[in-house]
């Protein structure tokens, strides 16, 4: 019975989806794919996917046509780090599910199970063009009993900001570690100890890989880490899951490059204030950098050489870059501003758009589905009135997996309630 009704439902839904074909016509389309930028182009969407894209192409018969003449169309934006859907209000206001303290988990902690696709933050950011995001665990410091977070924060996942049930696209795309200054407090006070902990964990994981069976039979000494953590680390060792390392100082980045080489693991840098000083080495080691284009001050002794030119220098050297700046959880919508600022500092415009769309999708291994406007990919599309990086231009319509997003958020509702400054009714009665 249950199966039957479910099957019926699937059929109905499939039928509805199948019936709806949408064609966005007449726009300048920045595909961020091999076809580059197309003028007067048409993007055809059906079943949640991009079916076709081309210039001077007619909309299919029966398609809902969206006239986008004079508009700019881009892929949906991809926020490469943050705690979207894991925290509602940052401080003193209920749980922040992005981090945990305790001795049960470290490397295996998986925040995806806490993701709330109905969070108010989701709509606020998706109506401004953010369609995908990495949700990443973060260290939460110390609890009341003095227990500390771990050098390994755990696993990060890619989510979409759509309304549907299938909001988690891919789990465990990266493992977050806190290197350098960001890990010092969790490792007894020295960045050298941070590295020792990382090496110890990877060594144990290697040992577990080779002698796990013996351990299960009770013929091997106990491990410091739990089986869950050691299992999670297998995916790092195999190169399946990269280490996402929060690290800024050039010396620490050099250590990361060595470590990645030594263990044959992949790495991604988050922060990377001084990464530009090692641009060629990072390019050679194929280590991407998720950076903050506005971070130009020596906020600590780990970022004495922070530079506005970071994005341009790294990109020029062939390092894959993405942007996470300022408030990455409540305001990833500002990702276009960060890209624009990097552009003003010498990053080519096309590379800036890539850094907020396709590059993060590639970094997390989901570029087969998102990041560019290509036939076969999920239809994450944004229609803009002009240059999407420009501050006065806001997304006019957003599509996530082919669904046209209702362009409403709690903030637009608040705005509309207070917009008429002559309305003297109590606000609660203005509807």
């Amino acid at each position, binding site marked *: 019975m249950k199966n039957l009704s479910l099957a019926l439902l699937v059929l109905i839904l499939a039928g509805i989806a199948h019936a709806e074909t949408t064609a966005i016509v007449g726009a300048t389309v920045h595909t961020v794919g091999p076809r580059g930028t197309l003028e007067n182009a048409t993007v055809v969407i059906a079943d949640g996917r991009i079916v076709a894209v081309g210039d001077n192409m007619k909309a299919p018969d029966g398609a809902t046509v969206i006239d986008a003449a004079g508009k700019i169309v881009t892929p949906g934006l991809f926020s490469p780090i943050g705690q979207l859907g894991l925290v*509602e*209000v*940052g*401080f*003193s*206001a209920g749980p922040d599910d992005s981090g945990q303290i305790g001795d049960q988990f470290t490397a295996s902690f998986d925040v995806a199970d806490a993701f709330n696709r109905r969070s108010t*933050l989701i709509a606020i950011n998706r109506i401004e063009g953010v369609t995908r995001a990495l949700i990443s665990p973060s260290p939460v410091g110390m609890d009341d009993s003095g227990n500390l977070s771990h050098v390994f924060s755990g696993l990060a996942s890619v989510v979409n900001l759509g309304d549907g049930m299938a909001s988690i696209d891919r789990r465990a795309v990266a493992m977050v570690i806190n290197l350098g200054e960001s890990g010092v407090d969790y490792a007894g006070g020295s960045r050298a100890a941070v590295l020792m902990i990382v090496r110890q964990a990877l060594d144990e994981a290697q040992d577990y890989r080779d002698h796990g069976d013996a351990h299960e039979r009770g013929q091997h000494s106990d491990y410091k880490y739990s089986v869950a953590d050691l299992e999670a680390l297998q995916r790092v060792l195999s190169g399946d899951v990269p280490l996402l390392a929060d690290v800024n100082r050039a010396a620490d980045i050099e250590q990361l490059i060595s470590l990645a080489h030594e263990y044959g693991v992949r790495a991604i840098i988050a922060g990377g204030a001084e990464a530009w000083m090692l641009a060629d080495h990072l390019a050679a080691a194929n280590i991407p950098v998720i950076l903050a284009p*506005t*971070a*130009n*001050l*020596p*906020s*600590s*002794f780990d970022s*004495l*050489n*922070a*530079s*506005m*030119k970071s994005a341009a220098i790294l990109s020029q050297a062939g390092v894959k870059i993405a942007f996470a700046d*300022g*408030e990455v959880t*409540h*305001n990833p*919508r*500002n990702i*276009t*501003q960060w890209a*624009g*600022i990097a*552009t*003003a500092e010498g990053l080519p415009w096309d590379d800036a758009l890539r850094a907020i769309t396709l590059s993060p999708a590639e970094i997390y291994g989901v570029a087969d589905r998102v990041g560019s406007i290509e036939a076969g990919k999920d239809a994450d599309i944004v229609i803009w009135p002009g240059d999407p*990086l*420009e*501050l*006065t*231009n*806001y997304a006019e319509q957003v599509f996530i997996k082919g669904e046209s997003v209702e362009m409403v958020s709690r*903030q637009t509702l*608040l*705005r*509309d309630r*207070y*917009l008429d*400054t002559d309305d003297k009714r109590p*606000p609660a009665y203005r509807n």
Partner: protein
Amino acid sequence: MNKNLVVITTAVVFLSACEQDSGDDAAQPFASRYAGLDSKTTLITGATVLTGTGERLENADILMADGKIANVGVGLAAEGADIVDASGKWVTPGVIDVHSHLGVYPSPGTESHSDGNEITAPVTAQVWAEHSVWPHDPGFVTALAGGVTSMQILPGSANLIGGRGVTLKNVPGRNVMDMKFPGAPHGMKMACGENPKRVYGSQGQAPGTRMGNVAGYREAWIAAAEYRDQMEAAESGQGEPPTRDLKLETLVGVLNGEILVHNHCYRGDEMSIMIDIAKEFGYKISAFHHAVEAYKIGDLLAESDTCAAMWADWWGFKMEAYDGIRENAAIVDKAGACAIIHSDSEISIQRLNQETAKVMGAAARVGIDIPPEHAIQWITKNPAKSLGIEDVVGTLESGKMADVVVWNGTPFSVYAQAEQVYIDGALAYDRNDPSVNPVTDFSLGTAAATGGAQ
């Protein structure tokens, strides 16, 4: 119309007022010793000029002489002046940030540098932010590269009354006196809401609630009024003057209108209560800062002539910031109140123009047109007004301080960059000539010293 005429009339009045203030100042401890950089008579020509008075002039010139704006208009000439061709560029007054912690929470943000919050009692009106300012904060230089020519440095918001703020000229000096804006009144920081009640409540000390906050402010004002009354009585020969009290001196300064209140306050309902407290004790709130819900009480702000200093879009980092919307400043402006975009950040102080642009775009979506010539006032004239320095700075009018920014295009673009920044007529920053630009002691030997950071 002759634009030149419009701007000359009040110049002499401003100047004499300024000199008089400076004279009074000199007798005070920690008086301004700001001298400014060497300036030359300079004529900026052919620019799109946003005057800060609400006007936009095309193909206009600005003449700066003796550190002051000498003239603004079309087709100016000046013998012997350095000519700066600004055709295709935009020129605005220097940007003013009403809320900064540069120097008191400098970079690097080490514990040893954390000098912005005197978290030892809920009312610390006796402390002055200027005594914590570290002039070698590299953040002054990066703010300068963003066109910031003046800013108010405030104590933090842990306390109900956190102490005096100081307005600085953005020319890094050897000490804070070298940077103090001549003649500017002191500010006084007050804080509503979550911070004071959390900081003290968690120590089992008052205030632990918002009602505790309000009791705390009122007790402080009652003590201040009593001190003032005793002082005045003694002056008229009745009784002895009270023992000098630094805390009450600051509060009386507010009651006398000599010190301006800058009140950290997020929620509309709390701002409304603060306005009532001000009425009860007869002082004025110059500006609410971080006024995330100002859009809910625009009419009350207009009525009490209180500015709202706002971010473009910071929200949700704590409960009292949950109702932040991007149109906030535009709705406040539409209600006829004084809107300011402020930073509270060493990063966003570098692009207050961009933060303003985000509001302009959001406002346009709902039919509120904020043209550039109006928007620029949110980061120039209006902060100057809230700081009590509107008579001498904040607009491009003859006789005012020649604090001027030449932008590479419209400042309300993500690609906007300040190319030249003049402070009192002197070239303080030039994006195209690193040899002009300041490097603080701390930045020597780092990327910042070679222009990397800017």
